[in-house]
């Protein structure tokens, strides 16, 4: 089986509200694919459709080329964490993993293996109801890893995690992708995916906005802007604006300049005798790139609504 998720023309409507509107994308093996969009964009719905929990009105969602519902031991093909609190509070962590293992014919020793791997071995015989949010999250991830699947899906995995946990989960996702698995992770905050995702699927209002590699997206968003660091912000802004550039202040000492090259800026500032401590090409953050993308999407969908 090829470790991929393929979503093709999926449409889903709940009582008149369109949740997913003709979505098509592919998740590739060996990469962390981020699935980004504002709350209510249709990320969780798409994930539920991939997992066969909700039936799409149109289109197909395939895992390794097959619909999820046709898989005979699905946990060995796809591991998913949707909602970490979906564990019976009266059940011990180990028993939770044990029934999952039984249902897919997974060996009992895998239960102890993943508990070790996830750092829950000491809490294995405690009831899940007493777990902290972080422990619940770890238990959910343990369940996803139980069948050693080539495809992994995490819905908002860092929610409720402390900084240590966030670092841990990012490392885990990187290492899972490095092992050749397809890792599909959703988030409503682009910043969470910085330094984690290789590829991004961005959606808004159930529609695809971008399907791009992170490198390309950042290059597009930077648009050859220049970043200037100076203590004489006001004078610099005036000077560069007069030279025809679009200038924006990032903080008290930093400006971004659009419309002039680095050399032009350096020349202008030197001849005006304005001191600057740093001049470099601006590197956009994912957050910025995302804001730009979704701003467009909001306008686009606004027009789309009117056109209908």
């Amino acid at each position: 089986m090829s470790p991929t998720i393929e979503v093709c023309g999926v449409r889903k409507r709940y009582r008149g509200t369109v949740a997913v509107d003709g979505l098509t994308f592919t998740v590739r093996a060996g990469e962390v694919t981020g699935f980004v969009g504002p709350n209510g964009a249709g990320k969780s719905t798409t994930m539920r459709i991939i997992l066969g929990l909700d039936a799409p009105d149109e289109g197909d969602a395939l895992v390794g080329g097959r619909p999820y519902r046709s898989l005979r031991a699905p946990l060995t093909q796809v591991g998913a964490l949707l909602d970490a609190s979906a564990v019976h509070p009266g059940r011990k962590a180990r028993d939770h993993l044990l029934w999952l293992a039984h249902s897919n014919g997974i060996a009992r020793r895998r239960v102890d293996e993943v508990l070790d791997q996830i750092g829950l071995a000491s809490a294995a015989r405690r009831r899940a109801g007493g777990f902290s949010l972080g422990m619940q999250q770890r238990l959910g991830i343990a369940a996803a890893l139980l069948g050693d699947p080539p495809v992994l899906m995490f819905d908002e995995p860092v929610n409720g995690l402390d900084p240590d946990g966030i670092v841990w989960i990012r490392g885990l996702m990187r290492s899972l992708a490095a092992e050749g698995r397809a890792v599909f992770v959703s988030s409503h905050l682009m910043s969470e995916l910085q330094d984690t995702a290789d590829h991004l699927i961005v959606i808004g209002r159930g529609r695809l906005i971008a399907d791009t590699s992170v490198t390309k997206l950042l290059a597009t968003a930077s648009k050859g802007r220049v970043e200037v660091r100076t203590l004489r912000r006001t004078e610099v802004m005036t000077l560069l604006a007069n030279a025809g550039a679009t200038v924006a202040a990032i903080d008290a000492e930093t400006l971004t300049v659009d419309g002039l090259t680095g050399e032009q800026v350096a020349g202008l500032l030197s001849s005006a005798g304005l001191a600057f401590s740093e001049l470099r090409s601006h590197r956009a953050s994912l957050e910025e790139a995302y804001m730009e993308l979704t701003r467009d999407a909001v306008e686009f969908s606004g027009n789309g609504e009117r056109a209908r």
Partner: protein
Amino acid sequence: MNTLQEFRLLLAEWTKLRSVRRWMITLLGAAALTVGLSVLAANGGTTDMNDNPNFVVGPDGTPVADGMQFVHQPITGDGTITVRITSLGEPPNVRPPSGGPEGAQKLPKGPWAGAGLIIKDGTRSGSSYAAVLVNPTHGVRLQSDFTTDLAGSPGGGPRWLRLTRTGEQITGYESTDGAAWRQVGTVTVPHLPQTAQIGVFVSAEPELLLQRSAGSTSLGAREVRNVATFDNLQLSTGGTGTSWHSDTVTMPRAEPEGPDGEVGKGGNQPMGSTKEADGVYTITGSGKIGPQEPPDDIVQISLIGVIAGLMALIALGVLFATSEYRRDMIRTTFMAAPRRGRVLAAKAIVLGTVVYLTALASAGTAFVIAQPMLREHGFAPPAFPKQSLTDPAVVRTLLLTAAFMAAVAVFSMAVGTLMRRSAPAITTAVVLVILPIIIGSLLPLTPTRWLMHITLAGGFATQRAKAPDATLVEPWSMVSPWAGIATVGAYTLGALALAWWQLRRRDA
């Protein structure tokens, strides 16, 4: 492969069930309630049935009714008696109805009375006998020792009857013309002595009048008489004389009305008479010759706690399903096993099996503990023959009672799946089980029986080891255990089918 996958799901659902401690405690609680309440009730109730002088036992020690007008003579060894019955019916000058509560309903009569030929161990009531007779509604019967009843041709019209003794074997014949004879059957009567009384008899089953009202029943018995005419009375061999004696076989006189409000059943003195002219005998008689066990069922009494255990099992069944919907745990379940119908089936099988075994153990325990207590409190032989754990009727009762409890638990699980929320699902299941009992206690006989056939409450009939009986307060006692379990099974399968249908079409 498929079987293996089914087994995986069963193992997974069993792991789910056993790993929530509260559920296991609920299961134990159900067992404790079943046993505890049954023992408590066994310790509380008493009966004076065995002290009642209006009480006769048959050759096998069970309570019987025995009353008739008997025209007889002794016979030693083998022999044959033949007679023609030319008419049978109630006497024309019927007394105005008396006794019995107002607005009461007549209960249907059994086959244990009529007119015919009998060979009997003397004229003492309760002694061994064999008879071939015509019953006004049930036709020709061959009966012996208050238990055996073989049917001949239907209809209560005129007949020729013949009874032949060969050692312990008694064979009955019938004929419409006295020439072409048809055998009704042969019975073995081991207690019949070498010299017995043989002759013709007339009996009439007392009319039982039943009134059900708000949680109680009152039963009245009215004496009725049959009159029959016989001719062609012939005793072939073995007769010791030619003179016929007329005697009235009677039950002991009834006590005045007991403290529990029950009117003595069939206790009035039968009034019989015999007239003979030119070989034509006109005999008037009353009484029933047949089983007369008290309807109270000591097996059922020792299982009273089942209703309490059932409440805990309803909660368990519902929670086993609704817990899946708390925090969307059902998604984890369906991610692990996307074929939803199989998940539902696995849940039903696991829950049903676990509850069945628990229920069987607790019902068996309740029975074993309660029986000696009940015997101490008067529920003892001869009125209440000793019941042992290996009696077929007891085995059937325990197995069916456990099946009833398991089916209700699975039904509750299906209701929980449909409603997804614990409180309304538990309430619904409890109401469906209990409400028909309350309504059934208020309604008259026929609608109550009907109600017990179409509701879950009919399942309580599984607790009865004795035959259905309309004279008891418990509404379920008037349907058979098989009818009760069939209704409960239909409810359970129906609810499972609905749940399956909804699971398939609904997003998880």
